[in-house]
């Protein structure tokens, strides 16, 4: 393996790290300043927190394939970028939480680790995207455009977007309160609105990096393959988040369905917009 010790290459990577730190702060701040997120850090079941951190890490590796610090040529380079992004996100979260006096040395390590692990999720998304987003756009490699252009690549982006936007609202009390207030008719309307919004984005935003979406481009084909499948992804991600945060255990099916409908709304906006941002 060749290691590039030249100054320009290292300087370029240092700038990437700086952008990643900025991205971590930008994406992390709303979550860093949300009370429920601190509380989740100490009361969330450790097995759930561990699997959530691992899932987040796998998504980071995938994001590195599609975006990230620099052109990547192999899976181990994606792994390295994911590790760097995770490291930066953790340090950024730790610094900000310590400045806010949300964590201090008198707390047991489980409380500190839990709080930082939760915050690292949005911050690491931000670090990975910031490395690319705040930099110049021409750094996207041909290989990434190719992967991004595939149907699987598009679905992965939608999943990542739904996960990020869904995560930032899923643990809040408002999520549950909204679903209590809504009648079943409100839920049905919300589902339809989510799908329409998603479809609007599919058309209005178009497809980045190429003029035509992969596959047939008829109305129904696009509607089924992107909007409906995208909404299904938002629903699955919503269910996953609700399960992770312990919101659907011991809850009736109707009530859980209503919560999923609420969470799938930001989820589908995230899914739609991810293809634009990432």
């Amino acid at each position, binding site marked *: 393996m060749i290691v590039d010790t030249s100054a320009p290459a290292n300087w370029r990577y240092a700038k990437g790290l700086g952008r990643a730190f900025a991205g971590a702060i930008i994406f992390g701040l709303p979550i860093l300043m949300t009370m429920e997120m601190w509380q989740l850090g100490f*009361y969330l079941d*450790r097995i759930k927190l561990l699997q959530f951190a691992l899932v987040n890490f796998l998504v980071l590796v995938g994001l590195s394939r599609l975006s990230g610090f620099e052109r990547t040529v192999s899976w181990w380079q994606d792994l390295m970028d994911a590790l*760097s992004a995770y490291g930066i996100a*953790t340090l950024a979260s730790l610094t900000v939480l310590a400045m806010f006096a949300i964590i201090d040395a008198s707390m047991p390590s489980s*409380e500190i*680790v839990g709080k930082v692990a939760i915050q690292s999720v949005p911050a690491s998304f931000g670090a990975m995207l910031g490395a690319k987003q705040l930099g110049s756009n021409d750094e996207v490699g041909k290989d990434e455009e190719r992967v991004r252009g595939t149907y699987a690549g598009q679905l992965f982006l939608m999943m990542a977007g739904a996960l990020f936007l869904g995560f930032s609202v899923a643990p809040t009390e408002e999520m549950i309160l909204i679903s209590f207030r809504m009648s079943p008719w409100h839920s049905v309307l919300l589902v339809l609105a989510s799908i329409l919004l998603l479809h609007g984005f599919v058309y209005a935003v178009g497809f980045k990096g190429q003029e035509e979406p992969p596959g047939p481009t008829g109305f129904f084909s696009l509607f089924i393959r992107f909007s409906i499948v995208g909404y299904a992804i938002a629903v699955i991600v919503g269910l996953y988040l609700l399960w992770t945060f312990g919101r659907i255990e011991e809850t009736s099916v109707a009530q859980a369905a209503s919560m999923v409908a609420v969470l799938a709304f930001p989820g589908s906006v995230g899914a739609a917009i991810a293809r634009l941002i990432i």
Partner: protein
Amino acid sequence: MAQKKKSKDKPPSGPALLEWVAAAIGGVIALTIFGLLAAEALSRPEYEAPILRVEPLAIVSAGNSFIAEINVRNLSAHTAASVEVEGSIAGQSETSHVTLAYVPGGSERRAALVFAHDPRSGGLSLRVTGFEHP
């Protein structure tokens, strides 16, 4: 050296040295966090009631009332939410209450009870009257 080009359009010949350093640090951090979470997940028993201990810290007089600073410590690994603490003074009918949003497992939280009578005169008794599972 002949392969090395300065042009920005060319991909680098290999990962920059800094990339290895950053990834190594990130790897250590990630393994530490995953490891600590896993260790806790494995060591934690299925259910254990939060064991809450409440103790007075200091009593100060403020105008017409007396403020008793208290400390609530959770000795178990399980978090208790909405922890209610009741304080009473021996020989007086007066009781005071306070609710703490959370007392995380292994942590302590501070609060205060306000009394009209001086708790130092009779002897202050404190107890936790209830909590919620988060």
